[in-house]
């Protein structure tokens, strides 16, 4: 029988599908009897669903300038190639 400590350390692996059927069975058996761990797993699932909702993309106001600066600093633009600079 798994202890509560073992259960909460296995939660993420179980939710990731990283554990085999035997560990999953012992995990389920523990959850069937332990309301604390059931609550923990329920909350952990909720958190795991919410964290990827955190804004993963941020565009600076002068995004095009930033992009241009990066490329201009190392790659010549076609305009640069064509223009005859002194």
């Amino acid at each position: 029988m798994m202890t509560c400590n073992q259960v909460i350390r296995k939660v993420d692996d179980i939710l990731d599908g990283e554990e085999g059927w035997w560990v999953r069975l012992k995990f389920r058996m523990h959850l069937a009897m332990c309301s604390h761990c059931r609550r923990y797993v329920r909350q952990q699932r909720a958190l795991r669903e919410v964290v990827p909702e955190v804004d993963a993309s941020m565009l600076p106001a002068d995004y095009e300038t930033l992009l241009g600066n990066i490329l201009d600093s190392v790659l010549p633009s076609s305009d640069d190639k064509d223009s005859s600079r002194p």
Partner: protein
Amino acid sequence: MPGWLATSGGTWISLTVLPPGVAARAARQPEQGDGAGIPPGRRKARSGRPHGRHAASMDEDLDKLKAGDRQAWTGVLRVHMPGLVAFARRMLRDEAAAEDVVQTALANVVANFASFEGRCSVKSWLYRAVRNRAVDVLRRQKRWVIEDVDPADDWFDARGHWTDGPIAWDAETAAHTRQVLTAVEEELQNLSEVQREVLLLRDVQGLTPDEVGRILDISSGAVRVRVHRARRALRVRVDARLGEGAR
């Protein structure tokens, strides 16, 4: 309660109807589990090995990048820069410094891409460059704190049973979900840098453990351990905000 349909190939299809917004991010979502929180199968890798015509196209793209093709680089940077900027901003908690880091790191990558050996994806390579530059800045500012404590060490008695049990809160209603999201966004910023970077890369940017391992120069097993600890550390902070007086 989400439902699942088993296919003959051993995979599972979620019958859950995702609400708008969540569906749009479904590609980055971990698999849903059953009522007990147990998923029916392994989480799908977010990036697989390319094959066939796709692989040939990627090789062609790599050649263009190595040759310094401005158009090819513009395409790559347009795809990845929003994520890189978000990652750098959350790492540094300073908008201007983050943009400076992204600009310097990416210019360096573009300039030296001929030495790219293809051992990882271009995306991992870009994140690695930005992450290393951000860590340099944090170190200079003496803000790089290597603190990776597992809060769960204090949750149980000698027999491995809960001493108090988890604080009560739920995220089953839309209002609660918004509360949890707000708490997560704010408390992410209060994690130690080591825990924050691994959560940002794995859970927010959706990189695989292998990709995160290549970025941080650690094994994918070590990534999993760090991610699990970081999730528990985040959870403690979220618990404290959402569960005040609820125990």
